[in-house]
């Protein structure tokens, strides 16, 4: 059986992912390139006895040694030596796309050009002479329209023909003019003095990289930039051109791209009115640009959370209601010991629930982010917000993950992937937990209800502002410390607006979701079970003597200067590491020891039989769908950010009033806002960045910051006489 390794390269926004989806369909596997947060897609296709191993390279404009994506792409091409490259080229922007093609040809690997977005080019009145293009570059050219799957069959046909006869495509050595002499002299030195290097690297590519002073290649080969044979070849040249070799070569490549484009492209009269221009004239307008932007961000947020919350609530109610109830019934019938019933219902099922409630919000949010990216609006968001974001060391695109953080920090961490550099991704991820998420609301609600009922909106608002203020402060500090030394650049294409394919959006959303459930799910599940053991060992003791209570008691002196140095408060904060809303439920368990309430609700539900419960589940799902759509239409408020009074919490509220004063209550709220990002955020950080390091740093920085702020509030308040 024959096998062939095919790499897919191309510029960003050339429709590369759509083409990959069209070729590979459900065979596509998504992962990360080792050690970095750059997506790697692979697929294995079996067609007529031929196995095609497809690898999607990151979208790049060039193969320079500077961006992570470029390094990954060229490392793969040079070291894994694919048999064939499919180069996805945007037909509406031929010259810039051919610049990459020319660099691919330096590798001496046969290239097939997928002349994508061909329909749009034709509409614009572009006529491309395909045969001439093939002849000039020594490639095969297939016009494609990935969104309509046009040209995919022909592309596979070319791969098949090439697998039959490797001489089907022979890459052409392009003439680099007067640099050729230098190339020849260096190449002959390499042949005589470094023959083993030529076994590893394509010789023309290696020569060009050495001439370009490519840091990575110099390091890998151990050849010094000032070695005589290189120096000679360069100096003579740089003198006559008064430019460094790297610029000279970039110029030559673009010169060829320009020449080829001029030779093969004819512009006829076509539809010149550019829709993108028209939209941008409004969307990026000096006066109405910002109001439109704010409106679309508000709407984005509303869909992301108000639409998904009813589904999360529904899942939550099914899991904590009927599922728990019937599991208990079954386990009791099997005469299981009480602790085991508790472990299964409060540990295992609650753990599964903790994973499941994230599914709606992550699904909706990933869909929206992909939509923003695919449509081209994400680049405009970056364009509008860059001024503000840049002042705290971030990139314009950081705005989206930060904004979405107010709903839930977990998908926000995933959303950092829209950023272009690892540095920007990590810095943004460090600031995301300071955006006060929805899970912190129940904590605010109960304390504000108990202590600040009169000034509720102001106090709530002050917490959000405190979070944003600390984010700005931390951004400024991190820019100068942990993230020093990187020069964040903003050189970004504003791509034409395009309508993304629903199929692509769904594929992407599904892949992210699957990833979350499998990878993050196991961790979250494990943490929930561990937490159950913390709360319940030794089984049956008072909460104060449980493992959690003991640890809480041991660390409580740390919180003494903040005004809440009790074992109850510190145990609740510890439990809140799972998710911040757990602070409230743990407090309720600890402070309000009356168990009658639970028994009551069980009795109420206990009268229903299994079928009735199933009916209820169906009805409540229907209601969730209705709610979701109603939320979208229900005015300007963001429903999932409203504080809801919970009557069941009245006993806890009066208990809190006995123990806390308004001053240490506020210090406690500030602490809850800022401390230790929850475990689920940590797991998503681990998943995105491949190690626990970022989460470790975040834990340390945020906890210290929370302690200092709460300290200042409490001690300052005392001095001021509150």
């Amino acid at each position, binding site marked *: 059986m024959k096998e062939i390794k095919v790499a897919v390269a191309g510029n960003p926004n050339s429709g590369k992912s759509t083409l990959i989806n069209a070729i590979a369909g459900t065979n596509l596997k998504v992962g990360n390139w080792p050690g970095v947060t750059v997506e790697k897609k692979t697929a294995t296709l079996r067609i007529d006895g031929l196995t095609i191993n497809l690898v999607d390279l990151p979208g790049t404009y060039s193969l320079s040694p500077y961006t992570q994506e470029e390094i990954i792409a060229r490392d793969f091409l040079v070291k894994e030596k694919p048999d064939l490259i499919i180069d996805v080229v945007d037909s509406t922007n031929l010259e810039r796309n051919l*610049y990459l093609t020319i660099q691919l040809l330096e590798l001496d690997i046969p290239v097939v050009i997928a002349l994508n977005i061909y329909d749009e080019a034709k509409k614009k009145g572009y006529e491309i002479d395909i045969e001439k293009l093939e002849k000039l570059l020594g490639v095969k050219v297939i016009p494609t329209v990935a969104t309509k799957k046009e040209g995919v069959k022909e592309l596979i046909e070319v791969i098949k023909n090439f697998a039959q006869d490797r001489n089907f495509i022979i890459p052409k050595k392009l003439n680099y003019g007067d640099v050729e002499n230098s190339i020849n002299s260096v190449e002959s030195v390499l042949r005589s003095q470094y023959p083993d290097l030529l076994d590893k690297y394509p010789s023309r590519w290696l020569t060009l990289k050495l001439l370009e002073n490519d840091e990575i290649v110099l390091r890998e080969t151990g050849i010094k930039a000032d070695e005589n044979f290189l120096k000679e070849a360069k100096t003579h040249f740089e003198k006559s051109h008064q430019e460094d070799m790297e610029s000279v070569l970039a110029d030559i490549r673009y010169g060829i791209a320009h020449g080829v484009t001029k030779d093969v492209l004819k512009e006829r009269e076509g539809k010149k009115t550019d829709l993108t221009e028209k939209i941008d004239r409004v969307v990026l307008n000096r006066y109405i640009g910002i109001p439109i932007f704010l409106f679309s961000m508000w709407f984005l947020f509303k869909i992301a959370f108000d639409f998904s919350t009813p589904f999360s609530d529904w899942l939550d109610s099914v899991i904590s209601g009927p599922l728990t109830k019937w599991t208990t019934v079954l386990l009791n019938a099997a005469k299981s010991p009480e602790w085991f019933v508790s472990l299964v219902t409060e540990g295992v099922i609650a753990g599964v629930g903790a994973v499941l409630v994230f599914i709606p919000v992550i699904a909706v949010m990933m869909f929206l982010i992909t939509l923003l990216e695919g449509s081209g609006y994400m680049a405009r968001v970056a364009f509008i917000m860059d001024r503000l974001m840049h002042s705290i060391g971030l990139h314009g695109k950081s705005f989206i993950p930060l904004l979405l953080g107010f709903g839930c920090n977990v998908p926000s961490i995933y959303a950092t992937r829209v950023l272009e550099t690892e540095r920007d991704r990590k810095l943004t991820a460090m600031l995301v937990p300071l955006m006060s998420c929805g899970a912190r609301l129940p904590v605010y609600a109960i304390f504000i209800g108990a202590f600040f009922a009169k000034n509720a909106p102001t106090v709530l608002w002050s917490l959000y502002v405190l979070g944003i203020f600390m984010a700005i402060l931390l951004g400024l500090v991190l820019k100068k410390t942990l993230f020093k030394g990187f020069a964040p650049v903003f050189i970004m*294409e504003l791509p034409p607006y395009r309508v993304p394919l629903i199929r692509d959006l769904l594929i992407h959303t599904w892949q992210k979701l699957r990833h979350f459930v499998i990878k993050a799910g196991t961790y979250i599940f494990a943490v929930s079970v561990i937490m159950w053991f913390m709360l319940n060992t030794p089984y049956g003791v008072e909460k104060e003597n449980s493992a959690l209570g003991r640890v809480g008691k041991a660390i409580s002196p740390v919180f003494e200067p903040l005004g809440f140095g009790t074992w109850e408060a510190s145990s609740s904060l510890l439990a809140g590491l799972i998710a911040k809303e757990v602070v409230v439920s743990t407090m309720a368990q600890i402070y309000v020891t009356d168990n009658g309430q639970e028994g009551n609700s069980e009795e109420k539900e206990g009268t229903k039989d299994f079928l009735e419960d199933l009916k209820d589940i169906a009805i409540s799902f229907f209601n969730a769908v209705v709610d979701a759509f109603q939320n979208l239409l229900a005015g300007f408020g963001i429903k999932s950010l409203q504080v809801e009074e919970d009557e069941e919490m009245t006993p806890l509220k009066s208990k809190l009033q006995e123990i806390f004063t308004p001053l240490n209550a506020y210090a406690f709220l500030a602490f809850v806002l800022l401390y230790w990002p929850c475990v689920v955020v940590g797991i998503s950080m681990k998943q995105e960045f491949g190690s626990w390091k970022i989460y470790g740093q975040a834990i340390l920085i945020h906890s210290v910051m929370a302690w200092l702020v709460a300290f200042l509030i409490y001690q300052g308040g005392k001095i001021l006489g509150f």
Partner: protein
Amino acid sequence: MKLSELKKGKKARITSINVKGSLKRRLMDMGVLPDEIVEVEKIAPLGDPIDIVVKGYHLSLRKSEAEQIEVEVLE
């Protein structure tokens, strides 16, 4: 004159790029090369970055980067 000073809607020819290393290479990779014709299309609502048209597509860059690019205005 500097690219950052170029008025909206005016076309200009790039004469030199006064940066080194990765930034220069990145600009050149994106088609910002000496002798290339550029036009400032838009300025972001908050005054920075700017949107230029080069080689028939839209590229946005910050003014701090545009300051390093020398151009001469075409009449």
